[in-house]
């Protein structure tokens, strides 16, 4: 029997890894991947709650979040490509 608590723990772990990627890595594509990991963790938590409460609205929420993640990713990649074409570096500027 699959316990929803197990899935929630895995979701927390995935969220922690995504947050670590956001903090530690500097490359813009990898930072975007970290953002996607955060959203995937939320989707996994929604899946666990769907199993727990038997409410299938959680599946609809997962689909909406995936659609939003896809749009956010396209905007992020466009911005990152625009920055790279202007030869910006990925270090913090000394202001």
């Amino acid at each position, binding site marked *: 029997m699959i316990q929803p608590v197990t899935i929630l723990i*895995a979701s927390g772990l995935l969220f922690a*890894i995504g947050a670590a990627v956001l903090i*530690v890595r500097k490359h813009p594509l990898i930072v975007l*991947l970290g953002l996607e990991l955060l959203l995937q963790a939320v*989707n*996994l938590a929604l*899946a666990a709650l769907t199993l727990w409460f038997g409410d299938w609205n959680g599946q609809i929420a997962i689909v909406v979040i*995936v659609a939003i993640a896809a749009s956010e*990713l396209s905007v992020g990649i466009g911005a990152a*490509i625009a920055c790279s074409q202007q030869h910006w570096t990925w270090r913090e500027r000394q202001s």
Partner: protein
Amino acid sequence: MAATTAFALLLLLAIAGAGGVLLFRRPGQCCVAFVLCSTALAGIYGFLDLRFAALIELAILAGLFGLVFIVVLPWFGRHTAPRTWWASLVVLPLTVLITLVLSQSAIQESAAGPLLPMWAVTGSHLAALGREWFTRHAVLLILTGLLLLASLVSTAYLVRDHDALFGEGEK
């Protein structure tokens, strides 16, 4: 017991993929790890009988994101080593098949189910290889357009095919 073991394997695959995003040095390797993670998550959704979410996850995240990330990489001046390309060509379709088998969902029952999302992932790598080898953007654009269309058609076909979405209730 077998179902619990399969589910645990899928969870481990997802966490291993996420760990790969954190630990791998090259962006190409991180992209491959991310696609592994999202494919395993699609298998988990299938295991929990969230079929629509599993299909969307496979078609959009594993297929489209794999395509977007790996194709966009050369624009950042990074060149992925050929062995990474070949490794992803072998590993990712196998991963899709393994997660679909492990998920034990109704996706397997449809003949088109395992094949089209798998080829969306594989084909995205072929398109990226085409860009590396031939540097012909028209070929890449046509290939990626066809692959996206195939992913959307396969998703729509499988959604239409499932009674769970349009029937009276879940099993």
